[in-house]
Every structure is written in structure tokens, then in C-alpha cells.
């Protein structure tokens, strides 16, 4: 007996109604949802009322998508932090009574004060549902079991993944409170089908498995779902995870403040915008939407953030969007390659845009380099310049490091067209991380980083 009727379980899409909706109908529906969320935020969130009043726009003036794009201002993390600081933790960003809270989260605060995130029960359910789109696309159903190899802390991401498993109706196995070795033993004992992790941790468990003499490709894990940092849409990283685990690797791209915005495409070369619960623009440095096929900053509006609405929120993530079909037959917008980098990580070397995700992909092509690397960016009088520190694999003799250095520099020069220095490091010399890895070190003056121009709507 199965939880879903067989003919329903066989469906390709979790919600075929919106996932196959023609673009014009989707856009009409978006406008209705945007008008609803703008009216809600204006009526209930002092932060949004102030923002719209300052920009002399009222919700009823947003009659068309063009009005939304041109008249409504962007909002950035700093403005939310300022609104929260009025009466911490949520202050003027709050739009509902705490009676409706279900969970409270916060960002790490690694780049400043932590941003507090209130989720109502309604939001928590729908953050969970946003994960179901990638589960369903990956062929996962209620009969599958999902392993969570980390502690459930104050960070929202994998809590929402857990809510997604509940929404799907599948089984959860928690590896909380255990170290990596104990988690691997638990995987052997409970035989889960799916593991959720950051790409960094999925690969790190490979080192732990080697210490235990364990072959991860022989475990029960058939699917690895990665989130929290780029990797799942970077072919070489995905391949490394798939070979290590003997499993198929899928990605979900989410943003701490907004939730799981982009479930991975089943063809695994990129992610889709979850157009059920989010709207997005991709804009250039002047704040204008770029044409499909171009790269820009991802600007997202959530329809499911009733505790703390976020409308035209600047994510600082760089993505390439397209309305071209990816082959999986959904009509939802497609971002090939997932997140390409951060606006504050944008590097221009001799006039060429260099994306950290592209460098990661190229490093993986060099046989003998491990997945551990760091990018250090600095600037001379006229140019950004990049130095890569990349660890050799443990089985590579130190006498070969010179060859690795030459191979890595050559492959980067041949693909990107500019010279980037690569320093090969001994195994274990770079730090290890259980959640997100810190790989990008920016030593440039702030004035030389990508930023949206100050203008109405920007």
C-alpha cells in the first residue's frame, strides 16, 4: 500500500498546474500575488510602510508588472537590520503577532549583526513545500527515508528541508548530536535513501569514510541533495559527490532570509525559480532587469513570508536567468549553473568577468587536486588579481606539486583567457567546515566591489 495513489505518484510534477503554466498566465498570476503581498506588507509592516511612503508609492499604484519593476524600491539586508534594531529582535520589520510564530531563526552574523527570521506555521509549511519540488523532481516519494547529518540549530535551511520531508510524507532520520564517524555508522545501520548536506560536508564525509575504511559508494544512499552553497550545479563538484557516494546529486538553492527559492532541475544542470511561492528579477548594476541569458543580481520577492515580508529583496547572488526550455518541461524560469557567485565576489581580471563557481569547476578538472581550495582577491592600481590556494590529494607525491600548479594555471588560462596564479598546498593545510565553507577572501577596497547604483528603485 502506498501513501499516494499510483497514478498520482507517477506524475512528473509536484504541482503540474503551476509548473506547466504558460509564461503569460504565470506572469498574470505573479502580478496578483505581488499585489496581495505588497498590500499586506504596507498594512502590517512599519518597515514597508515607511519604505513605500519614502518612495512616494502606494500599493494600489502597482497595477502592472512594469509598475512593480520600475516604481517599487529594492530592499537590502541593512534596511531590515535597521528596522529590527528599533525594537529587537524583529522591531519594525514584523508584520504579524508573535502568537502566530512557529519558529525563530537567525543568520550567522558573520558579516555583521545577525538578521532575525520569524516563521509563522504557514511560512514554515510552505518553506517545506518549496523543498518538495526538488524531492519530487528527483523521483523521491513517501517510501524514501532522508538522513540529516547535522544538529538542528538556529539556521533555517535544513529545518525547512525537514519540513519538506514531512510535507512529502517521507521518513526522517536525524544525525544530530553525533560526530561524522558516528553519522556514517548510523547510515550503515539505518540504511537511508537520501542524504541532505552542504556540498562541502558531503565531500568531507569522504575523508572521514577513508579513515574508517568505509566505501560510501556501497552505502544505501542513492540520492544526495545539496544546499547552502554552490556546488550541486557545478558539474565537476556534482560529479565528485556522485562518484564518492555512488548516488545522484541534486541541488536546492535557497537564501536564509527568504527560504528555499530555487529547487534543482531534474536534469541537474541548474535550478528553477519556485514560481509557486517566489517572484524574481535579475538586474544589472544600474538596477535594470537584464535580458534572458544575461547575468545579474538575483532580486527576490517571497509570497510566503507573512511574519516578515520581503519584497524585491537584494540577495547579492549572481545568476544567469533564461526562459529557454531546459528539457524537463516545466515553464518555470531556469538558472543554468545555479548561483554563479556573489555581487561582492565579482572579479574582473583584465576586463574579463571571473566567477568563483567557474574557477571551482576548472580546479576539479585537474587530476591530483582535491576539492579543498581558497580564492584570494586583491587589486593593484587598475586590475583585480586572484590567487588560488588548492590542496593536493593525499595520494599525490609532493614532487608532483609543480606539475599540478602548471596544469591548473594552464586550464584556467585556456578556458577563461586570463592568467590566475595557483599555489598547491599540502593535504590538510586548509580549514575544514561542517556547513558552509569559507572559500572567498576579498582583500580589495570596498569601492572596487560590485554594487547597485543609488537611484529610485535601486
Amino acid at each position, binding site marked *: 500500500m502506498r501513501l499516494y495513489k499510483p497514478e498520482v505518484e507517477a506524475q512528473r510534477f509536484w504541482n503540474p498546474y*503551476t509548473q506547466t503554466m504558460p509564461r503569460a498566465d504565470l506572469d498574470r*498570476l505573479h502580478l496578483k*500575488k505581488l499585489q*496581495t*503581498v505588497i498590500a499586506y506588507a504596507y498594512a502590517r509592516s512599519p518597515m514597508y510602510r515607511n519604505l513605500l511612503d519614502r518612495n512616494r508609492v502606494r500599493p494600489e499604484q502597482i497595477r502592472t508588472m512594469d509598475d512593480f519593476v520600475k516604481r517599487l524600491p529594492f530592499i537590502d539586508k541593512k534596511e531590515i537590520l535597521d528596522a529590527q534594531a528599533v525594537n529587537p529582535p524583529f522591531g519594525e520589520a514584523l508584520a504579524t503577532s508573535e502568537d502566530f510564530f512557529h519558529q525563530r531563526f537567525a543568520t550567522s552574523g558573520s558579516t555583521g549583526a545577525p538578521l532575525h527570521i520569524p516563521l509563522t506555521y*504557514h511560512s514554515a509549511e*510552505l518553506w517545506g513545500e518549496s523543498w518538495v519540488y526538488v524531492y519530487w523532481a528527483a523521483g523521491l516519494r513517501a517510501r524514501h527515508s532522508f538522513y540529516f547529518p547535522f544538529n538542528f540549530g538556529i539556521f533555517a535551511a535544513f529545518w525547512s528541508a525537514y519540513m519538506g520531508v514531512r510535507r512529502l510524507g517521507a521518513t526522517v532520520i536525524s544525525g544530530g548530536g553525533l560526530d561524522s564517524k558516528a553519522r556514517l555508522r548510523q547510515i550503515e545501520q539505518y540504511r537511508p535513501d537520501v542524504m541532505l548536506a552542504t556540498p562541502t560536508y558531503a565531500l568531507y564525509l569522504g575523508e572521514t569514510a577513508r579513515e574508517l575504511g568505509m566505501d560510501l559508494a556501497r552505502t544505501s544512499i542513492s540520492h544526495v541533495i545539496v544546499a547552502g552553497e554552490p556546488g550541486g550545479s557545478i558539474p565537476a563538484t556534482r560529479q565528485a559527490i556522485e562518484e564518492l557516494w555512488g548516488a545522484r546529486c541534486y541541488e536546492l538553492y535557497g537564501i536564509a532570509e527568504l527560504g528555499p527559492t530555487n529547487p534543482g532541475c531534474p536534469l541537474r544542470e541548474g535550478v528553477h525559480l519556485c514560481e509557486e511561492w517566489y517572484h524574481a528579477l535579475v538586474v544589472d548594476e544600474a538596477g535594470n532587469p537584464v535580458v534572458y541569458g544575461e547575468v545579474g543580481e538575483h532580486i527576490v520577492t517571497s509570497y510566503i513570508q507573512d511574519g516578515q515580508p520581503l519584497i524585491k529583496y537584494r540577495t547579492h547572488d549572481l545568476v544567469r536567468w533564461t526562459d529557454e526550455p531546459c528539457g524537463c518541461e516545466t515553464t518555470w524560469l531556469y538558472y543554468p549553473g545555479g548561483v554563479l557567485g556573489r555581487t561582492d565576489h565579482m572579479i574582473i581580471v583584465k576586463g574579463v568577468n571571473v566567477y568563483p563557481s567557474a574557477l571551482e569547476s576548472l580546479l576539479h578538472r585537474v587530476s591530483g587536486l582535491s576539492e579543498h581550495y581558497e580564492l584570494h582577491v586583491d587589486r593593484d592600481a587598475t586590475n583585480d588579481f586572484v590567487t588560488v590556494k588548492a590542496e593536493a590529494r593525499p595520494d599525490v607525491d609532493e614532487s608532483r606539486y609543480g606539475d599540478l600548479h602548471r596544469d591548473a594555471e594552464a586550464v584556467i588560462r585556456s578556458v577563461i583567457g586570463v592568467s590566475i596564479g595557483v599555489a598547491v598546498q599540502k593535504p590538510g593545510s586548509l580549514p575544514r567546515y561542517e556547513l558552509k565553507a569559507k572559500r572567498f577572501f576579498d582583500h580589495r577596497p570596498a569601492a572596487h566591489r560590485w554594487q547597485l547604483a543609488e537611484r529610485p528603485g535601486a
Partner: protein
Amino acid sequence: MTHAETLERIRDLQARVRELRRASDNPAIERTMQLLDLYCHMARWELGDVEAMTPEAEGR
């Protein structure tokens, strides 16, 4: 069942659930009806029937 028929049934169900929520003085039933209301709301959005942002905003 057509899209319109599905929506009609969900709206009808939600109206009955709300009526029961208001009428009940049992905390367990009140909470269950709140959740049913929320799921009806979600189902309506999933089918493109956008009326309000949250069940709370609609219901109170």
C-alpha cells in the same frame, strides 16, 4: 474533476471548517480546524486562487 470544480469544493470545505472553528469550544478541535483552514488556503494558492496572504489575515 476540473480545476474549477476542485476549487469550488476547497472553498466550500474551507467555509465549513471556519464555521466549525468558530463554533467549537474544544482547544484540540479549534487547533485542528485552524490547520485545516491553513491547508485549504495553501491548496487555493496552489491552484491560483489568490485571495489573501494568510489564513490569519483572511479569517480575523
